[in-house]
C-alpha cells in the first residue's frame, strides 16, 4: 500500500473498523474460494468512504461484513469500538437490487422501520409521510413499488433506511441500475440528506467518478479472487458539492487521473479473469 494516504487520526473509535478481514466461501465442488483477503479499512464517524473496484472483486462482501450479514472467515470487524457479532444494529443498508416489500405501499414501506422498533402505527405513518416528502415523493404514498420507476423506488429505499436514523449507512451500488441523469439527481439527494447529520457512509460503486464526487475518501480494491485493498485516497474537494459541477473542478480531474491509473490495471485484470474463466 505504498500509495496510501495517511491513515485517519484515531482519536476516537472509528464507526467501522475492519482488521485483516478475509472471507472464503466453500464452493459446491468442495474447493475454497477466497473473495477478500486481509482487508483493513477504517471509516470514521461522519466520514463518507467509497470502495471502488472491478466487477466481482468482493466489494459487496466487505459491505456485508460491515452489516453483519456474513461473518468474516478471519480478522475482525468493530463498530464504534465494539466487536461486531451478528447483525449490525447501528447500520442502515441500501441494497443494489430491489429490496422494498412489494406487498406494501410506499408509505408502508417507509413506516415499517419505526413500526418494527415499536413506534405506534399512527405516529410511524406521520413520520414516514414526512420522509416521503423529503425524498420528493410526498404524493406517492399509496403507490405500490411496481407502480414506481427505478429511481423512485431508490428514493423510497433511501427513506426506508434513513427514517430509522442509523449511525452508519451502508450502500451497495445503490444507483447502479439507474440511468445517468437519475444517478446524478440521486447522488445530489444523497449528499443533501447526508449533510444534514453526517452519518458514517460506506458506499460501494464501480463508477470512479461517482465515488470521487460523493466521498471524503476513495478506496480501491484489486480484482478478485482474493481481492485486497490496494489504494486509499483522500478527496479534498470542498463541500457542499454538486455532482455535476464538481466534475469540472481541476482537483477532481487530477485525482481522477491518479486513481484511474491504479484502477485501470485492475479492471483489465478483472475482465481477463472473468472472460478466461
Amino acid at each position, binding site marked *: 500500500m505504498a500509495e496510501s494516504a495517511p491513515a485517519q487520526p484515531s482519536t476516537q473509535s472509528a464507526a467501522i473498523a475492519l482488521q485483516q478481514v478475509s472471507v472464503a466461501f466453500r464452493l459446491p465442488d468442495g474447493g475454497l474460494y477466497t473473495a477478500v483477503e486481509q482487508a483493513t479499512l477504517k471509516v470514521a464517524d461522519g466520514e463518507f468512504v467509497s470502495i471502488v473496484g472491478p466487477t466481482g472483486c468482493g466489494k459487496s462482501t466487505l459491505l456485508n461484513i460491515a452489516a453483519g450479514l456474513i461473518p468474516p472467515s478471519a480478522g475482525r470487524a468493530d463498530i464504534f469500538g465494539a466487536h461486531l457479532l451478528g447483525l449490525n444494529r447501528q447500520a442502515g*443498508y441500501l441494497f443494489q437490487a430491489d429490496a*422494498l*416489500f412489494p406487498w406494501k405501499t410506499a408509505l408502508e414501506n417507509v413506516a415499517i422501520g419505526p413500526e418494527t*422498533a415499536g413506534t405506534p402505527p399512527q405516529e410511524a405513518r406521520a413520520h414516514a409521510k414526512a420522509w416521503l416528502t423529503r425524498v420528493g415523493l410526498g404524493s406517492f404514498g399509496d403507490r405500490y413499488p*411496481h407502480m414506481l420507476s427505478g429511481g423512485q423506488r431508490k428514493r423510497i429505499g433511501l427513506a426506508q433506511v434513513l427514517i430509522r436514523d442509523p449511525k452508519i449507512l451502508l450502500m451497495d451500488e445503490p444507483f447502479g441500475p439507474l440511468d445517468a441523469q437519475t444517478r446524478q439527481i440521486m447522488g445530489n439527494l444523497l449528499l443533501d440528506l447526508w449533510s444534514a447529520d453526517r452519518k458514517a457512509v460506506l458506499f460501494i460503486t464501480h463508477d470512479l467518478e461517482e465515488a470521487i464526487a460523493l466521498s471524503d475518501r476513495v478506496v480501491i480494491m484489486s480484482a478478485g479472487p482474493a481481492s485486497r485493498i490496494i489504494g486509499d485516497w483522500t478527496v479534498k474537494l470542498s463541500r457542499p458539492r454538486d455532482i455535476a459541477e464538481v466534475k469540472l473542478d481541476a482537483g477532481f480531474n487530477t485525482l481522477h487521473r491518479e486513481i484511474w491509473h491504479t484502477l485501470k490495471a485492475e479492471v483489465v485484470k478483472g475482465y481477463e479473469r472473468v472472460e478466461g474463466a
Partner: protein
Amino acid sequence: MTMSRFTLLTLQILVAVISVWAWYALATYPVFGHVLLPPFFFSNPVDVASQIYVWFATGVIWKHLLVTLTESVLAFVIGSFGGVLVGFWFARQPRTAAVFDPYVKMANALPRVVLAPIFTLWLGLGIWSKVALGVTLVFFIVFFNVYQGVKEVSPTVLANARMLGMSKRQLMRHVYWPSALSWMFSSLHTSVGFAVVGAVVGEYLGSAAGLGYLIQQAEGVFDVAGVFAGMFVLAAFVIVIDMFVTVVERRLLVWRPVAELRT
C-alpha cells in the same frame, strides 16, 4: 393481437350459436340417410334447454346447487387452511419437510377418486364425504404453493427486513406471510376449481343431492338430456364462481403488476 370488446363478444357468441345449431341440425336431420348424432345418445338442444328450464321453473335445482356450493366452499376453506398451515410449517422446518417428503409425494400422486369410497364409508352419504374428497385436492395445491412461497422469498427483501431490525415474529408477519399468501392467491383459480371437482365427483359416486347426483340420476335412467342439462348448469356454476374469484383476486393482489395475474 388487438380486438375491440364488441368484436370479441360477437365472435364468442357466434361460436356458441354455430355449435348449438350444428348440434341441433345433426341430431334432427339425417345426412345421407343417417342421423349423425342419434338423439338417444346426444339428445338435442331443445330438450336440454327445456330440462334446464323445468329445473329452474320448479326450483328443484336450487337445492342441488346449494349443496354443491356448500361442499365446494367447505372443501376450499378447510383445504386452504390446512395447506397454509402445513406449507408454512414445512418451509420453516426443513428437517420435518425432509422426513415427510416421500409421503407427501406419495399422497399427492394417488388419484383422489379412489379415496371416494373410503370417505363414503367413513363419513356417510352426506356432504362431508364430498368435502373430504375436495379437501384432499385443494390441500396439496395450496400446500405446494405456500411452501414455495415461503422458501422463495427474495433473499434481498429478507436481508433488508433483517437490516431494518425485524425480529423472527416480525419477519413472519411482514415477509413470509404476505409472500406465502400471494402464492396461494395466485393458485386461487386452480384450487377453487378443484374444490368443485371434488364435490361433484363425490356426489356422482354416491350421494343424495347436488349437481353430481343430478347427473348421475339422469344417467341411470338413460336421460341424456338430463345429463347434458346437468353439465351445462355445472359449467355455468363454475364460471360464476370463477368470476367471483377474479374479483377477490383483484382486490387482494393490488400490489402485483397486472401481467403476473395472468397465470
